[in-house]
């Protein structure tokens, strides 16, 4: 039994989600409020799996138009050009700046996709009660949560360019619809990461459901 970590829930205790105060619940079904900070207590985040799934699926749906629709529409000397994220990557690579192309590819294409895949993996393993690789999965979770706040790089650059390059009628840059979807992907994956309760990773193999439904 020593090899197996003992969770608070296994001994009938729970930690406050906000201030981490270890408390005894007022009632098993309805744990009550934290005696220290007054936050509402819950065995695990309510409907964590379901919420996370919904947000991940929404992000996955938005990921498609984010990559298909143009993020920038450039009008220069009468000719209009619309660029998608992938188009920009290809343009950068073709024009020789492969490091930049790599950065954009990683930051704008691979990381959102990776987040979706990682969250899906976490959700599936948590639902199936997998016990394997719990440490790795925890690391993945923190990585996803950490990288979330840096994912708005594209949106940031887009907003900058649109605001700065307004040389009408010679040249103008308009944001495309794709950037809205890209933003939605980022926000939704961040929310999904937030709503996922990492404790669920460690609940595997333990009949956690029997205790709190």
């Amino acid at each position, binding site marked *: 039994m020593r090899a197996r970590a003992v969770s608070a829930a296994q001994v009938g205790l729970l930690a406050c989600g906000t201030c981490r105060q270890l408390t005894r619940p007022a009632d098993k079904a309805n744990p009550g409020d934290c005696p220290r900070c007054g936050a509402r207590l819950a065995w695990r985040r309510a409907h964590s799996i379901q919420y996370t799934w*919904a947000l991940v699926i*929404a992000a996955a749906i938005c990921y498609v*138009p984010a990559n298909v629709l143009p993020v920038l529409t450039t009008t220069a000397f009468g000719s209009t050009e619309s660029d998608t994220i992938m188009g920009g990557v290809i343009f950068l690579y073709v024009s020789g700046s492969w490091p930049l192309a790599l950065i954009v590819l990683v930051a704008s294409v691979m990381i959102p996709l990776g987040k979706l895949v990682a969250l899906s993996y976490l959700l599936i393993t948590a639902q199936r009660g997998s016990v394997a690789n719990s440490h790795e999965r925890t690391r993945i979770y923190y990585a996803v949560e950490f990288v979330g706040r840096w994912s708005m790089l594209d949106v940031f650059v887009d907003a900058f360019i649109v605001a700065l390059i307004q040389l009408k009628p010679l040249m103008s840059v308009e944001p495309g619809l794709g950037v809205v979807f890209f933003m939605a992907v980022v926000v939704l994956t961040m929310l999904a990461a937030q709503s996922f309760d990492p404790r669920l990773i460690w609940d595997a193999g333990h009949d956690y459901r029997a205790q709190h439904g």
Partner: protein
Amino acid sequence: MAEPTELEDLPQATVVRPKRSRISIIWIIPILAALVAVGIAIQRIRSEGPTITIIFNAAEGIEAGKTFVKYKDVIIGRVTQVQLTNDFARVNVTVKISKNAAPLMVEDAKFWVVKPSISITGISGLNTLLSGNYIGFQPGVSDNSWDTFGGLDEAPVITEQRGRQFVLTASDLGSLDVGTPIYYRRLQVGQVIGFDLAPDGKSVVLKIFVNAPYDKFVYPGTRFWNASGVDVSVGADGINVRTESLVALLVGGVSFDLPPELAPTESAAANATFTLFRDRVTALRATDPNARRYVLYFNESLRGLSVGAPVTFLGLPAGEVSSVGLAFDAASATIRPRVVITFSPERLLAYGSVPAEVQPFKTALQDPQKRAAVLRRLVEDRGLRAQLKSGNLLTGQLYVAFDYYPGAAKVKLDLRQPEIELPVVPGTFTVLEAKLTSILDKIDRTPLEAIGSNIKKDLESLDETLKSATKLLADADAQIVPPLKTALEDAHRTLGAVERAIDNVNSTLLGPDAPAQQELRSALQDFARAARSLRVLADQLERQPSSVIRGKTDAASGGK
């Protein structure tokens, strides 16, 4: 038995949790996202227009993704792909057309590459210098949808302007080209939009476009002529240089106008065919539909008479020679020159006369019966005859002149022939020749040698006469002159005596001391005195008439 039961044996009260949906409200987010994404996808698919293929000879400045198809400067499509055809001879350009322009993709729509071009008539497509070449588009009129088009090498000149297209036939193209301006009263009203050889290769067919509203000035009777170059004519009023604009001088041009004798009618229908004449004079002189063909049989050489030579009526141009040839005359079994002319003297009626008066007459002439009657009257009664005249003594060019010869031999017109034969009189040159010949004949017939010998004889006798006359004069000189001299001297002396006698008379009668003078003076004094006495007597008688009887009284006589 009131044995206490184990607590564990008692059923546990259950807390019925409020029935809560297993499906959380959070699922609205992915549903919303899905709805929006699907909505955008549907909108994209619905706005997706057809994809067409344009086959060009060369993809000049066409780039996939960057070249647009523009119609009225509105982007209606974008090139998505440029690749060679399977036989590598041409270029397939794949174009994504926007949804709203899809109905325009019909069978006869036209595509061409717009690029900057500079020609003498103007500069076009300058905007493509900045934006790059684009594909121009002109909608068709067909109803059949189409997806593969042959691209044009050059832009069709007329795209959207209102106006009418006409067809000109010319013997050659001259300096005309696509874009050559069309002038009406030196105002540019259209341009040549295309040309091609006639199917038989014997003429050139030009397509021209006359912009509205000027197209209404093209009547069925309108003449078109090549206005290229300079038309210099020397007339009685000096040198007249006629050109269209400087552009026409450089690149050529086509002008049109209505001949002055024609009244404007309904405008010509679109695609009506006209002849393109060589120059303005030819165009406006060209035979009108009223012109009839007549045949003339001359009995003289036609050297110098060419097809196209003018036919004049009373000195004004009224037609031209259509053909010159020989004809076999069965009646006299001879070959004689045959000249066919187109002659319409009624054209001249428009000049300088009141149209209102002329018009009924011209209308009447349309009636063949009346026309024949007029012609018969002119020829049979007035003596209208054709005559070959020399237009230019140096080159010997001839023309046909119609004039009245009241004294000409009477003829009967045969009006049943399709080409009426009109009577002729010998040409001026022929007449002159005949007269000269007769004069020469007469000279030839004169016995010049006999006249010469007679004259010689006469001259000899005259010589003798002159000699005898000289001798006579010499005789006269010898015999008559000496006595004449003596007589003259006598006469001279006599005159001297007479002179002296007159001097004597002068001194005797007229000198101051001449006795006759003195006597005359005293006689005159006596006469004066007598007159004075007579006056006294008269006074006396006046005062005292009785003194004649009673004598003079002193009282009455006064001072005397």
